[in-house]
């Protein structure tokens, strides 16, 4: 399983920087990077929306890699993934 990350801009007033998380060609998550309005959480990545079983919990992470490791673990739980890939195995796409 290889997750890919595509950076996007979001429509929020403050939290404008975000990323889409894909499992191959399937969109599994929409994330945002928290702005200074969130106090000491500024810069962390928040899972706004998970589009797969097991990703309903809203949580925030130090960086996108950490978020993807968590998403990958949840996807594995959710669908009995065989776990052949190692690490977070994340490919970052450049922002559009």
């Amino acid at each position, binding site marked *: 399983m290889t997750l890919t990350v595509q950076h996007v801009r979001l429509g*929020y*007033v*403050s*939290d404008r920087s975000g990323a889409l998380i894909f499992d191959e060609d399937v969109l599994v998550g929409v994330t*945002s990077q*928290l702005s200074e*309005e*969130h*106090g000491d*959480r500024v810069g962390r990545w*928040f899972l706004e929306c998970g589009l797969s079983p097991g990703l309903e919990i*809203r949580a*925030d992470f130090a960086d996108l890699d950490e978020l993807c490791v968590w998403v990958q673990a949840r996807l594995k739980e959710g669908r009995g993934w065989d776990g052949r890939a190692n690490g977070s195995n994340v490919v970052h796409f450049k922002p559009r």
Partner: protein
Amino acid sequence: MSNAPSPDHQKLIRQLEGVVQLSNDDRAALAALPLRLKSVSEKRDLVREGSRPVESCLVLEGVVCRYKMLSSGRRQIVSFHYPGDVPDLQSIYLKTMDHSLASVTAARVAFIPHDAMRTIIRARPDIADALLRHTLIDSSIYREWIVSIGRRSSLERVAHMICECFVRMRAIGLAKQADFELPLAQSELCDSTGLSLVHVNRTLKELRRLELIRTVAKVHSISNWEMLQETADFDPGYLHLKRLAPA
């Protein structure tokens, strides 16, 4: 029975008189209830889920909440309680607590032995009526919260919670619109509305942008009461308050 009720007993009497007419004998019986007083700092458990209490808790000062905790550590606050409330009245009849009771702010509470509560309920029908009415009003508030969590947007939910808190505190003389300060911290807003901290932050910011609330040193106040109610679709009917003090 001629002694005047203590200020602590008076809070319970006033609360019950909000829903029924009490006689002098009723008031005297309430004034004679034994109270075991306890002061707690904020965010402390008062009664834990799974315990079998032999007393019920009367709130005297501050705000307390009932909550349930999932095994993963996620918490859902299911109600807030203000001075005069007896939030765990049910423990008189349902022996094992199916939720926990905790302080939200620093609080002062009184524990009343179940035996004394049972005696007064059996002897004084108007007091029994008043306690039953309060239990039914609690149920009405639960219904409103289910509607909020199930169907209201995050903006409506947070606005509704602020409206409810203000109206309940105003009803017991603890708030006027001009000086009302929301006693709930962000974490309590999250755990009661079922929203994440991130969403609550964004929502509060939007309420500020709309000039419905203002925030100074993390304390939220109401800037535009009429519009806040409209935004929340707030109708205080479900609180069944006999006395709706003017804003």
